[in-house]
């Protein structure tokens, strides 16, 4: 895109221009086409996630900094090439008669006041574990060297059918003229042929439809009904007491 001169004679304090409602919260975005934002090559988003709300996994073309303005929760970042270092305790799950074993990458807790980093192209999810709303202020650097596309934030979701509110007003109006404004987009699997996904994941057609979110109207923040199970180290005190238990238990072992 050809660069245009920055018009910085009159700066304005700005409010979000759009809001996308979701099952367990809402997302507000500032206008990407705004002169000041375009000049600096940045974009701002605010997520409000209700208790037991899950911000669906996705990745974007620009690195982001996230400030936790309120609440606390956990998040997972899927860093390519890194191992799934959190694993089920096999002995415990067998003795509990559980058929499920799991392993995944590190889960990171966060709380009010934390600044979180999300590298470009790396997918992440966030979950509100608290009793109050979780408020996240997201800054995206769209002119960062890591972004090689245009200076607009593009979010690629792995699930759900999120509305692409990140796009600027100009693009919004363009799509509005085509009659698609406000329509739900699909997640990134929705554009692929069923047979490709069946083969790639070795799953049946029913599961492919769920992967593509065909009957799913949920936006980017979804409500978690059942207990949200992830592998997470216990708090220090519990860990210490459990450590003593393991120590005494293994005294007779080689």
């Amino acid at each position, binding site marked *: 895109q050809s660069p245009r001169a920055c018009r910085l004679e009159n700066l304005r304090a700005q409010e979000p221009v759009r809001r996308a409602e979701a099952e367990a919260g809402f997302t507000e975005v500032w206008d990407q086409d705004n002169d000041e934002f375009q000049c600096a090559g940045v974009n701002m988003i605010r997520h409000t996630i209700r208790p037991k709300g899950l911000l669906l996994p996705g990745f974007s073309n620009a690195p982001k900094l996230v400030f936790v303005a309120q609440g606390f929760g956990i998040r997972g970042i899927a860093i*390519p090439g890194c191992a799934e270092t959190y694993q089920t305790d096999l002995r415990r799950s067998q003795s509990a008669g559980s058929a499920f074993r799991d392993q995944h990458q590190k889960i990171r807790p966060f709380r009010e006041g934390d600044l979180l980093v999300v590298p470009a192209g790396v997918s992440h999810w966030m979950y509100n574990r608290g009793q109050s709303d979780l408020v996240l202020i997201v800054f995206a650097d769209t002119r960062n060297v890591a972004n090689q596309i245009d200076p607009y934030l593009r979010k690629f979701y792995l699930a759900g059918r999120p509305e692409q509110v990140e796009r600027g007003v100009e693009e919004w109006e363009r799509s509005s003229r085509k009659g698609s404004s406000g329509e739900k987009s699909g997640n990134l699997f929705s554009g692929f042929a069923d047979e490709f996904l069946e083969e790639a994941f070795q799953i049946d057609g029913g599961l492919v439809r769920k992967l593509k979110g065909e009957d799913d109207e949920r936006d980017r923040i979804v409500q978690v009904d059942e207990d949200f199970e992830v592998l997470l180290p216990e708090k220090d005190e519990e860990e210490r007491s459990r450590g003593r238990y393991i120590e005494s238990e293994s005294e007779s072992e080689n």
Partner: protein
Amino acid sequence: GLEETICTLRLKHNIGRSERADVFNPRGGRISTANYHTLPVLRQVRLSAERGVLYSNAMVAPHYTVNSHSVMYATRGSARVQVVDNFGQSVFDGEVQEGQVLMIPQNFVVIKRASDRGFEWIAFKTNDNAITNLLAGRVSQMRMLPLGVLSNMYRISREEAQRLKYGQQEMRVFSPGRSQGRRE
């Protein structure tokens, strides 16, 4: 010191030889990469490349390049290729034949499956350390997510989440699969 450094820089690296493949599946094919680690001069030009060979009806896992665009030139055979954008819309769904070029933008997700004749390509990438992120298979985004997150993401049972996460055992290059068998 130029004659000891710049003048003696290695300016070539073979990525076509099968025995040097970085990824290899005897039923699926192979992929080799040249980046600044394997050819340091690429750091100066900020480019890298990938050579791929897919055997008959084999498939490359759904993937995207984290930090670069990819320009793929088909050197032999043909493949059905699908590319999906951030709206979840298919922006390319078609056959790529020998001699054709397809540009795949950064972060756009791509799947390719070779025809009966197989498929070979060279992809040029606009980053000296292009990183590929896989969405299915033994080392992929799905494997990195907890079962609890998967079942809530897709509103599926824990059993289904386990199938989705652990169903595909291969990595990056997949052997001709179930749907291929069904077609036959």
